[in-house]
């Protein structure tokens, strides 16, 4: 089925998730949709599959306008979407899931359904048992089930959102084979991903999105450097960080192995010096967060050791130590998801200040905490009052609040997306504050999807790609091209 999206607009509040996006997919084609997290890919395909309603724009299927408003509309029109986490019903059996979502009578012809199911799975070499509980399936198997279910519903256009995350290599090749078979049958496939390799291997053409816009379309094969430059934009900014490094090591990582069940990260050796800033580059979800969590003492490493510089004793192993000991060793962690991990929605700025203040008595000294909160608000230019709740602050002001809450003397600051949601002036101002800390000897590790930020403020850069970790590179020796290729997985 030919799919055309024309001039799609969608905004969430002030954020323009899709800004005049057009996309065209021929029947029989596998079309890649590439872009960083938050580029607007997911929004676009969710509009096509009816999970989100568009503000403006048209959807044409085989040239005819399609009034898709709900997922059921989309299915009826022949568009089905496979979500990153398949939308199935884990406590039910495979067969029950297979027949769920079907229009029609109250009664289900189990025999016929089972027959149909087996025919479809054997066609694609999927090995699924009809009586298995879905909760026992792997992510890859659940994807297979979902694909078969959608096909049985008569879907002509199949959308897959980041399908290769968390599935095994053999499942991935089975998936790709199946998708190619579907394309050969004349069905169209939209493949949403931020993995260059996958797109290069599978797709016929690719559209790249950035910040809600389409920035370009290319046919495959296409040099990955070109795709990366489309994904990340213009030439890199010039490094601008003053020299603050010292010789002594504040963090040492040895033979570290991390895992969150979906991804494994290995780092053999890394020394971070006092006053040093290390940028963690890479597409979001490539392992940077796991690494930061491990350094912060929140994620237990599967193997290896994190050693921290504790006062006077030099480096000491933190293996098996609780998070509290990391805090005592002067580690500060700033999570990306401010309202889920960093701040507490219903508490005020003053409350947060009080929480961070070491308590000298059981009672809160309201006057002094208010003064401290006012000072923080002034110093960090937070647009809010002492009694403003964290949830009422704008994203930028939440970030400033998080920064304001970091204890003054730290050995190591770990940050995810430290300036996301901040305007240029604030970004500059924030980094001034951070670099002042570096001058006092603090080391900083930060992950960012803004390559400019990484190049501008880091001494060294480590690139993460699908759990692979590069050796640290001096910022001065980086070029946009090499960085793009490394992010795409070539190192």
């Amino acid at each position: 089925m030919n799919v055309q999206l024309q001039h799609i607009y969608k905004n969430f509040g002030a954020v323009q998730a899709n800004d005049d996006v057009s996309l065209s997919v021929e029947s029989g084609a596998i079309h890649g949709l590439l872009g960083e997290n938050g580029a607007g890919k997911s929004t676009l395909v969710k509009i096509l599959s009816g999970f989100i309603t568009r503000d403006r724009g048209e959807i044409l299927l085989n040239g005819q306008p399609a009034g898709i408003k709900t997922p059921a509309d989309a299915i009826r029109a022949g568009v089905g979407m496979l979500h990153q986490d398949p939308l199935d019903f884990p406590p039910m059996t495979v067969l029950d899931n297979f027949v769920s979502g079907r229009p029609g009578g109250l009664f289900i012809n189990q025999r016929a359904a089972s027959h149909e199911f087996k025919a479809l799975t054997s066609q694609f070499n999927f090995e699924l048992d009809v009586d298995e509980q879905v909760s026992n399936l792997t992510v890859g198997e659940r994807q297979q089930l979902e694909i078969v279910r959608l096909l049985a519903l008569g879907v002509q256009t199949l959308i897959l959102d980041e399908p290769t995350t968390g599935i095994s290599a053999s499942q991935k090749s089975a998936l790709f084979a199946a998708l190619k078979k579907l394309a050969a049958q004349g069905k169209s496939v939209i493949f949403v991903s931020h993995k260059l390799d996958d797109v290069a291997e599978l797709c016929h053409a690719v559209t790249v999105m950035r910040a809600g816009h389409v920035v370009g379309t290319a046919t495959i094969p296409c040099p990955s450097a070109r795709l990366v430059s489309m994904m990340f934009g213009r030439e890199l900014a010039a490094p601008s960080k003053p020299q603050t490094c010292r010789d002594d090591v504040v963090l040492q990582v040895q033979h570290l192995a991390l895992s969150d069940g979906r991804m494994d990260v290995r780092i053999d050796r890394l020394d971070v010096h006092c006053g040093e800033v290390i940028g963690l580059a890479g597409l979001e979800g490539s392992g940077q967060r796991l690494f930061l969590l491990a350094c912060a003492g929140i994620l237990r490493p599967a193997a290896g050791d994190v050693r921290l510089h504790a006062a006077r004793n030099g480096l000491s192993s933190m293996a098996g130590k609780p998070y509290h000991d990391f805090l005592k060793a002067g580690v500060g962690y700033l999570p990306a998801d401010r309202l889920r991990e960093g701040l507490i929605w219903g508490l005020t700025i003053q409350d947060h200040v009080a929480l961070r203040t070491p308590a000298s008595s059981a009672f809160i000294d309201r006057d002094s905490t208010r003064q401290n909160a006012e000072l923080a608000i002034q110093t960090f230019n937070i647009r809010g009052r002492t009694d403003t709740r964290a949830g009422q602050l704008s994203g930028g002001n939440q970030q400033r609040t998080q920064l304001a809450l970091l204890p003054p003397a730290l050995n190591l600051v770990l940050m995810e997306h430290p300036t996301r949601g901040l305007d240029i002036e604030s970004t500059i101002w924030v980094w001034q504050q951070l670099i002042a800390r570096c001058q006092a000897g603090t080391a900083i590790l930060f992950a960012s999807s803004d390559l400019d930020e990484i190049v501008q403020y880091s001494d060294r850069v480590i690139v993460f790609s699908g759990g692979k970790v590069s050796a640290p590179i001096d910022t001065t020796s980086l070029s946009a091209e090499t960085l793009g290729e490394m992010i795409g997985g070539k190192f």
Partner: protein
Amino acid sequence: MNENSKTTRPPGASALSLRVSRAAYYQLGALLISLLFMALIVIFSGESPLRVVSSLWDGAFGTADQFARVLATLTPLLLCASGLIYTFTAGLYNLGVEGQIVVGAVATTWVLRALQNQVPAPLVIALGIIAGMAGGMLWGLLAGALNVYGKISEIFAGLGLNFVAQGLAIYLIFGPWKRPGVASMSGTEPFDESLWLGRIGQTEASPVALVIALVVLIITIVVMRNTYYGLRLKAVGQNPRAAFILGIPSTRLLLSSFAICGAFAGIAGALQVVALFHRLIPSISSSLGFLALLVVMLISFNALWILPMAFFFSGLNVGSLQLPMALRLESSLAGVIQGTLVLFALLARGLSERAGKIKRSQ
């Protein structure tokens, strides 16, 4: 998606006032609708709503005895509601409060039985209340340990422990602590009058018990408003992950909230024994723990509101006895009224928050 909607929450004070007035409208609307709904129920059961209201009023405040009873019901309600403030603030539904009352009462009875006639009566009473507090605390900690270390939902842990506590009380009443020769649902042998907590005249109101409850309430209000402990509890309750990352010891806080709630419920159980029933009976909690849960849920976990709301519910609870007496109506109608109020209040809160979200995401 997520980041998007978050960054667009309106900042500043104007949004705050907007939110509040909407919430208030919803609350008021809920109240009116629930009143209307209750009136309909009453009319369908063949009575006039006005007569029901006047009977309830009469039943709660008609005589000194009845008013005293309202105060006697208020006491455990204040204690349990104060305790539940801690667990609710920590984000926990401590349904085990009933069992904590029962174990408190059992512990008190045990001490009274062991020490009566051996130690001066006032000391026996004091030790009994302390024992009740300890017993309730133990039971609360048990629920907490099951929740924190056993990863069992505190709701199920609490309900399970309620059964155990109730079973323990019945076993004791029908077994080791039965009356001479006879075991009966009417409980253990009543204690000597010297072990009764002082009452106002012949009524059931005990000023000492009420004062204890009020002191606990005041402590709770102060802790919640003015201490680091209260603030940390709020942080853990609202966002355990963020609280952890901010360095707050959440396990210890969760356990302590169970312990405090259990201790207060245990005092309530102790007072049921020394101030009201003067013996252990199978239904020693009178289901007031569950009523306290409703009270606390209705006031959005704000300790300042416990007193008026608990008073209102005590009145309703005591007054409802008039329904069968004066109107031949089921007194469980008062339960329906309670339930309706809570349901509509919760519904209003949900709707108001939902409306707020829609507004924010536009």
